[in-house]
């Protein structure tokens, strides 16, 4: 039972982290149909920005600097690059953000080298928040989860109760109509793009301390975030939240399973089905496969995703 609770908590924290990055992506996507390939790169930039600035302004200052800096990077990418290719259509936008994804990784490699940098949890935050049974739950994980929760409720409230939130929600659904009503959709979009990037940067600043801060960060999270957007459905925050939590919890539990594929085949009475070498592979070692398998399943069952109504 204790192990179950710990796995559940770990899964929820990871899921919330994934959600922090997916939220901006799915909103931007819903509003302008732009899939930002570089969104996960902004997450990586957040970690590096916090690492760099943390030396001078401390841990909490680093979080603020990373959020603002990455937000600015997002704003400039949208206004200086993405707008140039808008008239060529979505394909060209997609290619541009893919180029950005590639370039950011190469620039980070140029500046910081290909190996992880020493961005660690500060000593004053290294303590146990509480214990479940005999496993200790570190405070820092709690902080990661709390950051994501604050962000979720903040975004939710901003979208639900403010005037600008109303315009954003309307623009996600019917951009032309909102524009026809006299709102400056491109400006709203720039703002949304910047805020989405800033949130990804904050997520990176928090997560980079816990997971290795390396140029591979963007690639690792990026594909998971895509899965979340496909599963969650177009432009849906709720769908993204559900998909993120599901993936987090599933992965977390799968890591704890000690069975092998051989056990599965025997349980199914298929021990004759001896694929070479697959028998000895443990489920836990391929926990990373689960999100993608889930995506294929959802595609079959509900191609538009959990909350999507537009195909």
């Amino acid at each position, binding site marked *: 039972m204790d192990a179950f609770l710990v796995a559940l908590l770990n899964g929820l924290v990871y899921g919330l982290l994934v959600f922090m990055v997916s939220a901006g992506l799915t909103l931007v996507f819903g509003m302008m149909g732009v*899939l930002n390939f570089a969104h996960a790169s902004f997450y990586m930039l957040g970690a590096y920005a916090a690492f760099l600035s943390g030396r001078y302004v401390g841990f909490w200052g680093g979080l603020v600097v990373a959020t603002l800096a990455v937000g600015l990077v997002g704003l400039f990418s949208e206004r200086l690059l993405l707008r140039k290719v808008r008239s060529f259509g979505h394909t060209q936008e997609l*290619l*541009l953000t893919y180029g950005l994804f590639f*370039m950011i990784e190469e620039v980070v490699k*140029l500046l*910081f080298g290909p190996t992880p940098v020493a961005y660690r949890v500060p000593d004053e935050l290294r303590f146990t928040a509480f214990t479940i049974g005999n496993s200790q739950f570190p405070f820092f994980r709690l902080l990661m989860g709390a950051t994501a929760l604050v962000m979720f409720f903040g975004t939710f409230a901003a979208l639900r109760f403010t005037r600008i939130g109303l315009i954003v929600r309307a623009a996600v659904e019917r951009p032309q109509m909102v524009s026809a009503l006299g709102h400056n959709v491109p400006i709203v979009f720039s703002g949304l793009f910047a805020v989405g990037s800033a949130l990804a940067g904050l997520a990176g600043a928090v997560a980079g301390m816990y997971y290795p801060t390396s140029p591979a960060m963007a*690639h690792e999270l990026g*594909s998971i975030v895509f899965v979340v957007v496909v599963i969650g459905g177009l432009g849906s925050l709720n769908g993204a939240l559900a998909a993120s939590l599901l993936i987090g919890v599933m992965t977390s539990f799968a890591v704890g399973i000690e069975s092998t594929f051989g056990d599965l085949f025997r349980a199914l009475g298929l021990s004759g089905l001896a694929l070479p070498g*697959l028998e000895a592979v443990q489920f836990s070692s391929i926990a990373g496969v689960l999100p*993608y398998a889930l995506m294929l399943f959802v595609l079959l069952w509900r191609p538009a995703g959990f909350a999507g109504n537009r195909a």
Partner: protein
Amino acid sequence: MPPQEQSPRSSARVTVVRILPIALVLGALIGLPRFADMAFLNAMVMVCIAALYAMGYNLLWGQAGLISFGHATYFAFGASCTIMTMAAIEGGSSFPTPLLPLAGGAASFLMGLVAGWFATIRTGVYFAMITVAITELVRAIVQRWDSMFGGEAGITSIRMAWGPIGFQKLLDVYYFTLAWTIIGILLLWFLQRSPLGTVIRGIREQEERVRFLGYDTHALKTLVFAISAGVSGMAGGLLAFTNESTNVALYEGAYSTTVLINTVIGGAGVFLGPVVGATLTTLFGYYVANLTYYWLLYMGLLFMVIVVYAPRGISGLGVDAVRRLRSGAPVRWDLLGRFALGWLVVTIGAIMTIELIGAVVQPSYGALARSSGVAWPPVRVFWVSWSPASPLTLGGIALLFGLGAVLLRDTAGTASRNVSTLADAIAGKPGPGV
């Protein structure tokens, strides 16, 4: 999506104009081993493989309008299955060695049927995301399944002789790769010209109408995906044949990126565009990788410049230029000259910036500064030593960028106007500033 050039002409003169360059290139490729050294011949083998891979990839993009961001899977799977077949031949199987790429192609075709069925449930950006996810799925499995795919160490085998052909010399490998590349490209050419090709382009333009005509568009898209995967797998098979080994690293994202970059740089809208891109970047890598650590960064910059300023790639520019010449309109040499000069100075400025920053952030540079007692030890770029922090260096770089901005202002247009590109300069259309 730029439509493919599809204007069949009957005039014999046009046929000669179209056939002659291809015949010349083919002749040069066949005669190449007489003049080239081993290293260059090796590079040309890689060019052929990259070209076939990009052509297979572009069947999906240029014809069906679907951009895959995870084609490495099919390339790598073709390589894996070819090397396994090679190992089987070594073990006494009677599979004929010259048909080895077909083994890889067939395997990737089957895998493409399954993956493509899932991926083509959705179109557009969703399709793109699903291809990324499928690649991650396959990679996660392959990297754990060591007994099948060889893990980090990979699988090695040797090319067994077949009849009189030994396949031991590089010359044999070169002609073998060249022949299969040409076969693959011809296959794609006839496919594009076939009724199936027409229907597929119809799906790209108006899927709903094609469905109304009674076609099962999902099945057709799956088929195109599988053929594209199969040709990419053939290219992967050629790589395995050449290297006599494969590695699970082939399944990584870098190989999906390369083929995408090749296709964009070459141009997806012209049949042989991807070959242009693959040739250019492979040879670029061959010559430049020795000169700089940051050649991938330069590739990325070139990619971005093409996406923003020449959306139809290099071959698209070529098509525009030919059209312009045929129409008999005067060439605007003044515009083209400013354009070329502008990009030249900007390129030099960018190279200076990247190389200087790259040198200064190295840990060894800090050590050098401490040991030599100089705050900013000089760095060599373009055969000259530069002091990275001196006003002369920084001012020079700023001057290059400023000059470039002035030269390109009228031809390239500005960000907000978003009108003029290199294509416009070639077409003689002045930018909004003129």
